[in-house]
């Protein structure tokens, strides 16, 4: 078992990053695809396994057309949505319909422009399956949910309402677990490295367990944070006094302003705790799911993977990254990204005893789907 090493350097990346932003701004956004290429290439080609590195082969020119279409659609969508909400809704439905296509295209493109040790990855999934997973399943879930809520409206009973809420929650957890399992299986089982085939064998029950645990941890940390918030509120702020003062100050604006300002730090504190809960949930989910997917996936039935991320360490990295970014007004973004990537990759292990030679058989892919999706922030769950 050997880990992937990441040789990116925060200062070196900072310089690339700032030049990218500068050029993007002064070209009014036209440079964006080229900036993206330089950015991705930096991360890919600094990732090494056994002295061989990954590489990113897209060119700015390839990405440009799709990007242009994306921007035009985005502007049209914003304008129409503002003035004609009804048509905006139709557009939203159209976007919903096109998401499976965008995912399919961007998977094909992204795998094709990625190489390791001079050999390209590829994706040979079918569009039909993409529609089943990213359109039919979510639609089915929404219909189920809608009919459940519709049925509940006939009863005017508190027990029925509580029952519905619990059923919805269970339905949601099951649906999400099922969806994640199907999606990961689709993406992995159709990915190739050269002529080598990735394969994975995932069980929905394990995904449900992970979801339930994530839910439990979120609930637990929420209770803890709420207790801290209430404690702080009673210890440091005299609540009855504040309410009285607020009542007394109704006709004196400066008075109210002063009171509001005195509570402000408390609001920020609570908000920060909320974000922390969010990170906790995300980190736990990433760590556990990644661990399970990696240990059940293989390349060519012989090369194995393992993820050794630690949940607490990941929460720590996410939280400190956020604090650094806020305190430096964004200048710490490159450092934060390098740090996060290094942690993720150095805990990705690959077991290849007698690696055979791989040869890639590639054909060119158009980047249109990938870039439209990029503008609308459609992203495939990374595995």
């Amino acid at each position, binding site marked *: 078992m050997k880990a992937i090493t990441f040789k990116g*350097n925060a200062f*070196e*990346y900072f*310089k*690339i990053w*700032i*030049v990218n*932003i*500068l050029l*993007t*701004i*002064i070209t009014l*956004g036209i440079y*964006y695809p080229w900036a*993206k290429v*330089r950015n991705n*290439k*930096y991360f890919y*080609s*600094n990732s090494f396994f056994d002295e*061989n*590195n990954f*590489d990113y082969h897209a060119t700015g020119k390839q990405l440009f057309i799709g990007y242009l279409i994306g*921007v035009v659609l*985005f*502007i049209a969508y*914003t*304008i129409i949505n*503002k*003035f*004609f*909400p009804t048509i905006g809704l139709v557009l939203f439905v159209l976007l919903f319909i096109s998401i499976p296509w965008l995912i399919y295209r961007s998977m094909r493109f992204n795998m094709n422009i990625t190489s390791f*040790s*001079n*050999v*390209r990855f590829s994706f040979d999934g079918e569009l039909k399956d993409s529609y089943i997973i990213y359109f039919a399943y979510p639609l089915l879930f929404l219909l189920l949910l809608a009919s459940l809520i519709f049925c509940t409206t006939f009863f005017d009973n508190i027990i029925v309402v509580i029952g519905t809420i619990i059923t919805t929650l269970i339905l949601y957890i099951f649906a999400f677990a099922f969806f994640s399992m199907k999606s990961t299986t689709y993406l992995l089982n159709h990915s190739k490295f*050269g002529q080598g085939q990735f394969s994975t064998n995932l069980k929905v029950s394990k995904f449900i367990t992970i979801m339930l645990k994530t839910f439990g941890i979120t609930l637990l940390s929420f209770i803890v944070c709420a207790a801290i918030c209430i404690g702080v509120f009673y210890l440091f702020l005299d609540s009855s006094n504040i309410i009285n003062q*607020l009542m007394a100050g109704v*006709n004196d*604006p400066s008075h*109210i*302003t002063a009171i*509001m300002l005195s509570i402000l730090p408390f609001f920020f504190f609570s908000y920060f705790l909320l*974000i922390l809960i969010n990170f906790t949930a995300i980190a736990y989910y990433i760590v556990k799911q990644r661990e399970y997917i990696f240990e059940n996936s293989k390349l060519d039935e012989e090369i194995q993977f393992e993820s050794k991320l630690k949940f607490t360490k990941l929460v720590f990295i*996410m939280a400190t*990254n*956020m604090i650094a*970014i806020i305190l430096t007004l*964004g200048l710490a973004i490159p450092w*934060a*990204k390098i740090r*996060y990537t290094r942690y993720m990759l150095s805990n990705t292990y690959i077991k290849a005893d007698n*690696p055979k*030679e*791989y*040869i*890639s*058989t*590639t054909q060119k892919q158009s980047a249109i789907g990938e870039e439209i999706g990029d*503008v609308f922030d459609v992203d495939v769950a990374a595995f």
Partner: protein
Amino acid sequence: MIEGILYKQNSTTNQKVVLILEETNFLIKANEEVNFEGLVSELIISNRLGNTKRVITLKNGDSFSTFENDFIDEHLLKKRNLLYKFEKNILLVLVSIIITALFTFSIFKWGIPIVSEKIAHIIPHEANELISNESIEFLDKHIFTKTKLSKETQKKILTNFNKKILPLIQNEENIKYKIIFRNWKIKDKSIANAFALPNGNIILTDEFIKLSSNQNEIDSVILHEVGHVYFKHGMQRLTQSTFTALITMYITGDLSSFAQIGVGFGSLFISSNYSRNHELQADLYSFEKMIEAKIDPIHFANIMEKLSTEEIKDSNTIKYLSSHPQSQDRVFKAKYYSNCFNQKIECKEI
């Protein structure tokens, strides 16, 4: 001479080799045996990116990759890579940070308002009609109910509007100004408000008319709303929010989601700043027209004070906190113009 790895085309098969330069020719040797040779000018060399591995593609499709970036830049390239030079130069990078900060600031501060003002005036008036008709249809369906004002009150306001206000504004552009009365209720509470649609329709709510003590107060607010139509603030806000969203996307394009929280706060602040400037501009328009019509601008101060105390009574404190300094400032300006009006002197802009 540099060391590197030679990969067979599209294959993981590789071996350690050295590349030797002999004037315009090069040799690739593995274990002292010549593996490949050719002209330097036939090589395809990838762009430099920090100190990442450089890939040189040979004529037969095989590729030679190496970390010896400086050697390649010096001996194999005809011209150095401009981007890399830029990224390497510390002074230039520092300058980039400053320029980026200044540029972003100026785009938000001046660029977006100026461009959206231009765009708002270029867009044909038909677009305003279309948007306004759609809006009023929506508002009538979901927000407003029919006015409960007496026919008499309505007629009084309309006659005054036609006789006194329209002559002041009619000659400026081909917009048809029109007063519309509506009732606006949230739960059991009537809302006092006035606003303009881009096509020149000015909506006054019943509660607003009740709140006003005299015709001059109503006129001052109508003129303020006309100001919004005249400067095409509706269209400007639309273009502004589109641009803000786009630029935010560029900057956050490769950000992880947690940094976007901060950016969200930023754009909220920016858009409230834009709408504040619009209010001030419309106020100024109203004051000037009032003076022209011999109406004391103090009436605007009076109605504003009434509207904002109305707001305190029932809206939540946080919303109040954000809007209050502004209305205080606006009342102050109205009083300043009223002062000029009474002393019959020309007011300087403040």
